[in-house]
């Protein structure tokens, strides 16, 4: 019941209202996306801990961190301040949109992996599903901002390609870790980007 309620609340946050009288202003859309990014930030730590605990050692070891593990199919969130600061609106939003498009697909993949590896861990599976829904929500919100600002909206792409299949269980555990870690990084970056937009397009 509480799970269903959480999803309902999540959906109200994720989906732009469609049937209201006046269309939302860019500022309103930015604010909505910003709030979603903040809520994603709040849930990040729990998701990562739940995930690592379910994978066993070394993932579940205290202080586990493996920054060297990377996935080429995920765009890196790291960016120099100079470059980030120089991004124009379209580029900034396009990068966020591209990242969350990739994250949405990767979170789907991680969810599938964990359904195989941890079928008896419903909490983990539910948190992964919620993360994917939030990523999808962020994707929709950013697209709505781009539309509201009159920016071109790039077509969605299949970012996963041939990458995932045939991975071993340990590789899948690693992959899930990377995806969730990067999901956190991109959420942090989205908060910063949207804060910039909020300042630039005040209501």
């Amino acid at each position, binding site marked *: 019941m509480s799970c269903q309620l959480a999803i309902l609340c999540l959906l109200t946050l994720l989906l732009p209202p469609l049937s209201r009288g006046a269309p939302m202003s860019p500022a309103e859309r930015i604010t909505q996306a910003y709030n979603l990014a903040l809520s994603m930030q709040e849930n990040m730590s729990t998701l990562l801990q739940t995930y690592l605990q379910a*994978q*066993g*050692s*070394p993932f579940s070891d205290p202080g586990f961190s493996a*920054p060297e593990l990377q996935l080429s199919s995920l765009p890196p969130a790291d960016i120099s301040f100079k470059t980030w600061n120089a991004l124009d609106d379209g580029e900034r939003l396009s990068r966020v949109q591209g990242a969350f498009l990739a994250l949405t697909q990767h979170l789907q993949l991680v969810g599938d992996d964990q359904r195989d*590896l941890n079928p*008896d861990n419903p909490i983990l599976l539910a948190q992964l599903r919620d993360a994917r829904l939030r990523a999808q929500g962020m994707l929709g919100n950013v697209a709505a901002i781009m539309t509201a600002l009159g920016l071109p909206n790039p077509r969605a792409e299949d970012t996963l390609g041939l990458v995932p299949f045939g991975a*071993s*269980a*340990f590789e899948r555990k690693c992959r899930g870790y990377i995806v969730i870690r990067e999901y956190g990084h991109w959420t942090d970056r989205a908060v910063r980007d949207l804060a910039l937009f909020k300042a630039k397009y005040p209501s």
Partner: protein
Amino acid sequence: MLFQIQISRMKTSNVIWVGNYSTVVKRDPVLHWSWKSELPLECATHFVRMRSRVDDAKIPEPRFWSNWSSWKEADAQKSLGRDPLFLFPKDKLVEEGSNVTICYMSRNQQDNISCYLEGQQIHGEQLDSNVSAFKLNKVSFIRKTGTNIFCKVDQKDVIKGIVLFVSKVLEEPKDFSCETQDFKTLTCTWDPGTDTSLPKRSSQSYTLFESFSGKKILCEHKNSCNWQVDSDSQEMYNFTLVAENALGNRSVSVLFSLTHRVHPKTPYNLFLKNVSGTKATVTWKVHPIGNYSTLLCQLDLLGEGNVIQQHNVSIKENGEYLLSELEPDTEYMARVRCADANHFWKWSGSISQKFITAEAAPSEALDVWRNVKSVSGRPTVTLFWKPLSKLHANGKILSYNVTVENLDRPSGLEVHSVPATANGTELTLDQDSYQIHVTALNSAGPSPASVIVVSGDPGNEEVEEERVNGTEDGFSVSWKPQSGKAIGYVVEWCDHPQDLPCDLQWKNLSSNTTSTVISSGAFRPGVRYNFRIYEISTERMAYLLEKKAGYLKELDKSACCQHRIDNPEQKTFVMENLQPESVYEFLVTPYTSAGSGPLDAFTKVTTPDEYYLVEKGPYTHTHHPPHDRLRFAHHDHLLPKKSVENPHLTIMNVSDCVPDAIEVIHKPEGSKIQFLGASKSLTETEFTKPAYLYLLPAEKNYSGPGPCICFENLTYNEAAADSGSCGHFPVTPEALPGQPGPLTSPENLLKALEKNYMNSLGETAAGEASLNYVSQLASQMSGDKDSLPANPPEPVLCSEYKMQMAIPLGLASPPPAENSGLSSTTPLDQSEHYR
């Protein structure tokens, strides 16, 4: 053909395995043979070669080997990518307890690599500069999601790992057996043991194979399988149950005859019919098994949870059994289970039904005893009986019937019905003899009658009392038969001789008995018990035979307070040094040169709380008992003016009056009082009369022995007068937990009272009679009631104080009179107290 195969690792000269493979070679053959390497093939290049020779007995020796083939290389490393580190095997599934070899391969032999299993570093064997192998012996099951093994390259943050999926050991099915309930289906069951499932790998499956029919089914459940019995033709079955998972299988077999594996279904429709007081018919049904099978059913009869009867009944379909020897009005449970009569295999489930047998007339006559007393000159018979035990009552007793027949003057029967709640009744008769029948009735009828005969003629009551000593077991009472015609004896006593009612007890004894031990949990040391032995005549009349009295154990304090009064004319005695708020008991007995007379009943007296007596004195006390514990018997001139208009007994503020007599109301619960009567002595039923403590201050010119304290009985009868003598019997404080300890000496109390008393003495209106009137000026000859009205009150140095009182007629009851012409009695309905 016979093939010899060699396998080398890393270099051809390093042969690690040689084996033979024999097979029949047909035309254009493609032969397959496999070899499983302990070391993952990815970690090292392997080489294989073979040679062959004819392996056919038809071809004579000598048979020569062919030349070895060239080495064939199997190099999985070439297909690997460019990663700096690889770990193998990936996702291997093994059974718990098996041995596993893992290996890593590094691209850079300068790398320092460390490997861990669930956080614990493991150490392996270096196969070459780039490859190390780890042999894990008897791997343990850690979790269903697998065991992580990972290696990392120091300083490079490279991490690689594998997951080893360790399955629980597949167990052989336990307790495998098959049975049928209807000859149509065989149900086989077993204990599957540990679940061996892992993520993405299902648990073990079970297959049932029957060798005689050659049939096989895949079982739907992990612990049971249903096998359809095709026809009656197959009697023997040989089942093999195979448990199988990805790593192997286990099997177990059972061979049996179908008719020896019949497990009937639980019987149904269990009913009780024709339930009487001692019998009941049980009926039930069973599901038929085949056409010719007979079932053996076990019928248990349970009472209070225990099996009290067990019967075996052979039936086809309908069961019936007549249960007998039941107790009336008793709850039972009938329980039935069945098994195959010819070849016992298992009992069916049980079906049970509770039932209660009907009531039957009580089976035993009541144990009845009687007491005869005189009320207004008419014999009054009090009947007592003991309730029937459940065993003999045979149902709920609805009432008792008492039938009275006059034996001297036939005048028909007088029938009294007594409610079931009573255990006695009272009859007022005349001097004739009466036969009394007492029966108990329940819904099924009356019990056998208990018959006693009473007569106005008391027979010989002048029986001398003898002492009897108590022992640990009770009182050993013996007697001498008198008439020789006794049909039995009755010993009568009171369990609580100091209480009212005194809890009359009796014990029936057979005619050939002349002694018995009377024991009771109620017996206490220091209490005098009286026993009366009656002979029951053939006419069922009781005649007093002997009287006994004694103590279970005499307490020391009873002996310490004996006072000898040498003057036979002395009728008063002053007791000194009594403790306030203490209970004393006293009796007076005459003595001659031959010794002292019989010990009669003690009279109990409680001295008052000092607080009330010395309220204005130096003895203050914070404890203030409630008013209803102490009541002042008023004397009109002592009353405050406002109370004179209503001179009846009242509860007063202690400061409003000057007490000269105190009645101590506090006494044991249930104590009751009797008044009237002219008996010379008191029986046990009067032992706890509330006594009055009269406190008379000595006048200044009083030359007597000191302050005069007399314990006065309530009535002007001889017994009361006798009891006015001052023997005293203090009761230990331990026996009276509700009593506070002594506060002061009696001398001080009296001094305190003296002043008030002297102020009011002269105002006494002599001759006034009222309820609870306490006269301070009673006659010195107060022991003689006849002289009371004639003698004007005169002040005396040491007056004896008497109570004059009117007693409601309905409450009047003669005291039991051991020395009167009638038997002692215990009234059933006594007033709590006079009003």
